[in-house]
């Protein structure tokens, strides 16, 4: 102690450098466009939010009625809708999905406007159906329908990906353990298991459909496969989702979306956090880049102008919103999601995304306490045409 005190008397202490800094340059938050969030409760706080540990938003889709439908994961799984309406800007907790603890990116809307989903963890990997026709939120009250539970398409396994094909009125899915690719025919209430994606059960939990109706998924080392409904055939492609050299064994495609604007499929891989684009017409895949050092790209969605939006983040990380402009090939980190409307809150962890009717971007937070974040991309200023 005495030595320390003597040493302190002689110590040369560091100095603080002169502050000549434009702190605006160091703002880590999304400032291009606007961010809001909604608590998972009725508007004007008429209800308690969906409780902590049950509210991680792990699946989102846009309904034909313009409402946003979401499902949560945790101790229980809830189905909810968000009404983007002047009459009732809030979240209706439709109810608990029986036997479910997780619904991961399996919500989709059919041509009647009904919402389909698959249970990703819980008691059984059942399909479920929700009729949206009663959904309404306003001063007079909030209304919702019933959740119907269907049987599990692959016995003993859960559903980790589900998409809808409007042309054929079928659902395509992947089972959790064995990685079976299956088709559920809605009219016939019939399941067809088309095959196991990889014999070693090394597969990615994503499916995507292009504008020709072909379905794509990924097996070992992120090799791409195409299912052609016309030929009723799974075709292995000599195409692999990108990763850092030597790391293909660890690689999984974590998020995927089809962009009608340019006809490309966009995907994000984990754990190397790389965004890629694949052109189905030419079977050409290219790496776009890595957004942040965080390992995951848990969700992607396409804005109304063709811009791809996504989250670069990871569990226990600090997620960044990013955008990719297919016109300029520009990959932009937009920053951390922070807002004071409705709830002052930093969003650190996200798992799901979808695009709203007017091009607003919905992001499902997946923390112990979670909110539905809404990003409003900026509207570019138009120049007046003069002759």
């Amino acid at each position, binding site marked *: 102690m005495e030595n320390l005190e003597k040493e302190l008397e002689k110590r040369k202490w560091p100095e603080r*450098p002169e502050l000549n800094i434009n702190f605006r340059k160091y703002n880590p938050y999304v400032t291009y466009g606007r961010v809001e969030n909604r608590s998972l409760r009725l508007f004007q706080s008429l209800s308690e939010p969906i409780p902590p540990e049950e509210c991680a938003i792990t699946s989102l889709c846009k309904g034909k009625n313009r409402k946003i439908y979401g499902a949560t994961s945790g101790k229980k799984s809830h189905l909810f809708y968000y009404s983007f309406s002047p009459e009732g800007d809030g979240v209706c907790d439709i109810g608990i999905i029986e036997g479910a603890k997780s619904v991961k990116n399996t919500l989709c809307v059919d041509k009647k406007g009904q919402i389909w989903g698959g249970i990703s963890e819980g008691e059984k990997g059942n399909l479920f159906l929700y009729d949206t026709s009663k959904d309404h939120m306003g001063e007079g009250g909030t209304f919702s329908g019933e959740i119907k539970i269907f049987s599990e398409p692959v016995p003993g396994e859960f559903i980790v990906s589900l998409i809808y094909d409007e042309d054929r009125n079928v659902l395509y899915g992947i089972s959790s353990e064995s990685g079976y690719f299956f088709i559920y025919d809605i009219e016939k209430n019939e399941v067809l298991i088309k095959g196991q994606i990889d014999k070693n059960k090394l597969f990615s939990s994503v499916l995507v459909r292009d504008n020709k109706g072909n379905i794509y998924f990924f097996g070992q080392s992120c090799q791409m496969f195409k299912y052609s409904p016309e030929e009723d055939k799974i075709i292995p492609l000599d195409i692999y989702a990108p990763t850092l050299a030597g790391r293909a064994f660890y690689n999984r495609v974590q998020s995927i979306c089809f962009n009608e604007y340019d006809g490309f499929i966009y995907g994000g891989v984990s754990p190397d956090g790389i965004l890629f684009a694949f052109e189905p017409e030419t079977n050409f895949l290219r790496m776009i880049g890595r957004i942040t050092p965080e390992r995951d790209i848990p969700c992607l969605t396409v804005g109304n102008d063709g811009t791809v939006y996504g989250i670069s983040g990871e569990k226990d990380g600090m997620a960044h919103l990013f955008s990719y402009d297919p016109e300029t090939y520009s990959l932009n980190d937009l920053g951390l999601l922070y807002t004071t409307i409705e709830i*002052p809150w930093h969003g650190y962890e996200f798992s799901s995304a979808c695009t709203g009717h007017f091009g607003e971007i919905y992001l499902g937070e997946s923390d112990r306490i979670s909110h539905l974040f809404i990003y409003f991309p900026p509207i570019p200023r138009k120049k007046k045409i003069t002759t």
Partner: protein
Amino acid sequence: MKKEALEGEIEYFCFDKLPKHDSTWGLCTGVDGNIYIAACGETTGGLSVFILRYLPDIEKLEYLIEVGPELGEPPDNGHATQSKIHYCLIPGSDGLLYCSTHASGPPVNHPFWRPQNTWDDENVRFPGAFIFTYDPKKNKINNFGIGPKREGSRCLAYDEKRKKLYGITWPRNHLYVYYIESRKYIDLGRIGDINPQAIFLDKFGNAYTTDDYGFILKIDAETNEIKKLKVKCSCENYRYGWHNVTYDVVPSPDWKWFYGTDWGYESRLWRFTPYEGDGIMEDLGRAWGPPDFKTDRSLERWQVRGLVFGADKKLYFAMRSGWEEEEHTYIIRLDTKTGEREKVCSLTFGDHKPRAIASATFDFYGNLYFAEAGNAPTGMYIYRPKNVRKDKKLFSWKDVKLWG
């Protein structure tokens, strides 16, 4: 420096061997009756927290240990530094201090630092909060390693019976527990966006803190389940209570109530007892000041902090008088039976004014200690009531709270 105060005197004690250290967050009374102090450096880059000791018997200050190098994190290694022990300096009946470190000090030669800007930067980021014990007898640190990765630990409580620490991280606001014997760290998840500055324990070892709106969260001692209670810290009736997280909480002398204040814009006092149902919360109103003073636009305007019960069983705290033409920070004394508030003294010594009072404690003779934050070098104030005698102890170990 000393001056007269109500029924006693107030002394300012500067830690002048640490000229750049600017805040004293951790402050506690050890089982040996000595005062332990965490002198922190959060403005100048490249500083590590020091643990100091004040010996009331001989009125002497000792500089015990520089913490960062002992944890393998020298303050000039380029990382955001182990600059602070915030409200995470907790005494044990075994004589040890149970501690975890906190962030905000910049890397050496950096003018500022924010965790969000450096989260993924391995060279610059804060590596995490170390959990450790300090043995004053041996002047040794027993390092348990990093608990919360890349985050600091804002506050800590110690359940001696279960050998279990409760803490809250910053900036992501996760609640954690750490089991000393098994060295097991468990992240219980995020509890809000605004960082509570206090987590406190009832007689059964259950822990309590608040969510962003001042609702009390109870963490079950056995199951670690987090339950939001239907009681809330008080606020003005036109507010939802946002930012009314706990700032400072002390037990009443009989340990039936917990007196606290918020890190809010209003700076009210409240008292809470958890022992019936969801507990009872009573509003004690604005801590001090004219009845019509407004909720301020500045969060740190009133600075109600440093709560401590004196041997006279009155609640002492510090508060800034933002409504006066010339602002001062005062020590105020509240008679919790009558609600009467008295000005004990200002903490202005000539040109020296504290920017904030961070925390408070007592020695066994009944002197009260108030830690200062915001000035370099940092220091503390000692209020010596007239009735204090060195041959008579008015407090003992059973009066010491095991949280920061």
